[in-house]
């Protein structure tokens, strides 16, 4: 009994220790678990925060790719939720949707581990100002020059041949051997100036003297201090016409008469005939027909001439167009000029020997007249609204736009007389615009000028004189050009490039429902194989062919369509009307040119109710199949691989 008693007591003690140990272990385990959960939750939150940030950056990368793709002929669409693009270790896709008002919505979603982000930008496609353009018919009977140039480089650096040299036999002349043109010393200076060498006139002469040290230049200086070529140097083996040179040289001397020292910048007399050219990329366009005759001389348009829809280009003898003459598929909608809202001060007549300087900012006058020989300075950045702008003979309008853009808005008319001058300090054409308000009637631009900027007057008549040389763009309602006008477009410098669209708005958007709830790995969530996906740079969808067609719909109504080819609803077509002919235009896209065109599948019925199918390129369809189609049963379109 005593043994039993002891044994039971010992057993009870062992049990107590066990329970105590279990309680302690359980407590410790509980605490540990709690801490572990807290740590896990914290880590997860931090990890999610990092993932969200990464997803945000992926979405931004997608947006950026889509936006800049628009400038290269892409549609803005990159991948899709079914086949997103690979970016880093995440995925992204961009949906491009065209709104009813023509704006394009780019919505980019980025997925990275548990992170999700969706961003949206709304952009407005910007149609490039097509070089020299008139809303109404263009009819010009005069020799003039239209070409284009890359605004990234000075115009004269892009002149064809560029072989501008000094011939020791004719040191007064700068000879463009390619174009067989002659330049006087002043033009030589000018050439160097626009090439980015900010030399003074004297410095250029010194440079030439250094190059030709054997020539004693003083021997050729006349009483006025200007060089005069001896008669023996005129004519000769280069075929320079003596009369021509004499006459032109005299005009140069006359121009500088009374000016003892020329300091840059100054405006040169224009070389005649039309002078050097880049020989390409000019654009002369209209919403109406274009009629060009050369006034008995020769006229070459170095680039495209683009009449309005259903209009044509008619040319006279001696007119050469080096580029395309196709009509526009649709009229170019010209944006209305928005004049800054500013109170107009009374009209002023500047007739003081002290230059009048209009400071930066927005200013308005009912009228500005610069008297003969007087100088008006527009200081940028700023906007000037003026009712009537008049430059009298020998008056100077100096636009100091190196510090900021200058925009001049004319609300009534502008008269820049033939002997006046307009100087622009900057060669950046985005830094100067001369705009005609809707109320403006006429801009008469006959001043002597190297005008680097845009003349935009879609509601006014614009007349350009031979000394008003434009580097940039010109848009008018009606256009008149004097003989020998030189116009250089800074557009169309690279085929296949489209102007960058304008961003109107950016915002963070709701994440698509398909990926919002589940925070699992993106590829599992979307059920895709990552190895089949394209990288972001290659996942863009090309712009479609533009389809222009008139057809009869199922309700026997005539209808027209112009837009992306794949968005045309073929099932609405009863049959295509033969006139005007349907037209398919490829996207202006280097990728498409390199890789081929869209292919299509179409199942249709012919006029004789025979069911047919076609699979092939859209151009083949356009040329041979389209006219057999009476009723479309099914269709599909595939971009080039």
């Amino acid at each position, binding site marked *: 009994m*005593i043994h039993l008693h*002891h044994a039971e007591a010992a057993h009870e003690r062992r049990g107590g220790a066990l329970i105590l140990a279990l309680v302690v272990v359980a407590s410790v385990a509980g605490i540990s678990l709690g*801490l572990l959960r*807290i740590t896990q939750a*914290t880590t997860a*939150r*931090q990890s999610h*925060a990092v993932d969200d*940030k990464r997803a945000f950056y992926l979405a931004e990368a997608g947006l950026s790719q889509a936006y800049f793709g628009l400038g290269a002929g892409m549609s803005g669409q990159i991948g899709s939720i079914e086949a997103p693009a690979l970016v880093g270790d995440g995925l992204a896709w961009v949906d491009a949707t065209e709104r009813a*008002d023509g*704006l394009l919505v780019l919505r980019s979603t980025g997925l990275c581990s548990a992170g999700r982000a969706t961003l949206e930008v*709304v952009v407005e496609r*910007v149609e490039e*100002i097509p070089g020299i353009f008139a809303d109404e018919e263009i009819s010009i009977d005069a020799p003039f020059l239209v070409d284009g140039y890359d605004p990234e480089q000075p115009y004269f650096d892009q002149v064809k041949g560029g072989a501008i040299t000094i011939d020791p036999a004719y040191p007064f002349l700068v000879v463009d051997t390619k174009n067989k043109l002659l330049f006087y010393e002043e033009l030589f200076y000018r050439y160097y100036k626009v090439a980015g060498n900010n030399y003074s006139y004297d410095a250029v002469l010194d440079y030439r003297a250094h190059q030709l040290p054997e020539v004693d230049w003083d021997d050729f200086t006349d009483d006025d201090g200007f060089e005069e070529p001896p008669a023996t140097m005129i004519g000769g083996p280069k075929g320079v016409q003596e009369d021509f040179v004499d006459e032109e040289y005299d005009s140069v001397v006359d121009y500088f008469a009374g000016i003892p020292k020329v300091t840059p910048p100054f405006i040169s007399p224009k070389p005649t005939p039309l002078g050097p050219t880049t020989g390409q990329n000019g654009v002369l366009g209209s919403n109406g027909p274009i009629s060009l005759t050369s006034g008995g001389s020769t006229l070459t348009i170095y680039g495209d001439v683009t009449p309005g829809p259903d209009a044509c280009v008619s040319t006279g003898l001696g007119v050469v167009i080096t580029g395309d003459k196709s009509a526009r598929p649709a009229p170019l909608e010209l*944006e209305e*000029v*928005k004049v*800054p809202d500013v109170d107009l001060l009374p009209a002023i007549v500047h007739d003081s020997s002290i230059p009048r300087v209009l400071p930066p900012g927005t200013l308005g006058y009912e009228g500005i007249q610069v008297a003969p020989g007087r100088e008006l300075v527009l200081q940028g950045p700023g906007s000037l609204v003026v009712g009537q702008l008049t430059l009298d003979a020998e008056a100077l309008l100096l636009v100091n736009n190196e510090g900021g853009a200058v*925009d001049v808005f004319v609300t009534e008319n502008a008269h820049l007389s033939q002997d006046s001058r307009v100087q622009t300090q900057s060669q950046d054409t985005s830094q100067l*615009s001369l*705009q005609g308000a809707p109320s403006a009637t006429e801009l008469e631009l006959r001043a002597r000028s190297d005008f680097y900027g*845009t003349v*935009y007057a879609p509601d006014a008549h614009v007349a350009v004189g031979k000394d008003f040389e434009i580097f940039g763009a010109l*848009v008018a309602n009606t256009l008149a050009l004097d003989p020998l006008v030189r116009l250089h477009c800074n557009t169309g410098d690279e085929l296949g490039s489209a102007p960058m669209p*304008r*961003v*109107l*708005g*950016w*915002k*963070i958007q709701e994440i698509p429902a398909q990926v919002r709830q589940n925070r699992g790995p993106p590829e599992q969530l979307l059920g895709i194989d990552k190895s089949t996906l394209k990288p972001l740079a290659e996942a863009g969808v090309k712009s479609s062919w533009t389809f222009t067609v008139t057809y009869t719909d199922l309700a026997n109504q005539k209808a027209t369509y112009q837009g992306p080819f794949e968005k045309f609803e073929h099932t609405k077509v009863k049959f295509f009307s033969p006139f005007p002919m349907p037209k398919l235009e490829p996207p202006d896209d280097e990728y498409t040119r390199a890789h081929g065109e869209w292919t299509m599948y179409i199942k249709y019925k012919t006029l004789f109710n025979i069911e047919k199918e076609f699979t092939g390129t859209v151009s083949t369809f356009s040329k041979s199949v389209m006219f057999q189609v009476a009723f479309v049963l099914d269709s599909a379109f595939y971009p080039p691989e």
Partner: protein
Amino acid sequence: MRLSQPPTRPSTQSGLTLLEVLLAVSLLGILAYKGFAVLDSAADTTQASTSEVLVEERCQIVLERIARAVMSSSRESLAPAAEAPLSTEELTFQMHLGIENGEVIWSDPEKIALEQLENEAYWTRTPEAGPEQRVVLTHLVRPYLEGELPNGMDDNGNGLIDEKGLSFVVDRNAVHIRITLERVDGNGRLVTRTAQTTVTCRNPVPEVVP
């Protein structure tokens, strides 16, 4: 019967001496004390670490929310626009909501600011019709940015003078945002965290294009 009965040991032989018990209790006491000390230290460390993490996390969250609001605005809508070495503890902005009829629709003016007395960073919006809406982003904001004293000098060497615990500096299209959060943890220690970022306003200034 008596011979076969085994001799019984005195009951004291199966127990412990008082000395043994005292020794055991002392040892256990020491062990328990050390154990508690270790646990206490671990708990302190955990608490401190948790506090730091929480303050850091809150700091990042608040900064991110402010940054995204600024990104969604346009430079023109920012006010006041202080440039270094000045800064402001509040920023009013308008967010892009959408586009209708070719016009950008902007939100009512919104403001993110510091209530210095309450150590609060808050967002507020006053619609044209209706009461003011206000959300407190955090109530841990330090009156002045970490290392800064209100003495007219740049104490922390960041190029700003007397910047507050939430500060904005506008530099052209970019906004520099700095924030310092501070809290007292369970052990009475001060936990301070500072974060900063620079973001650009993603919405463009409307331009007049011919």
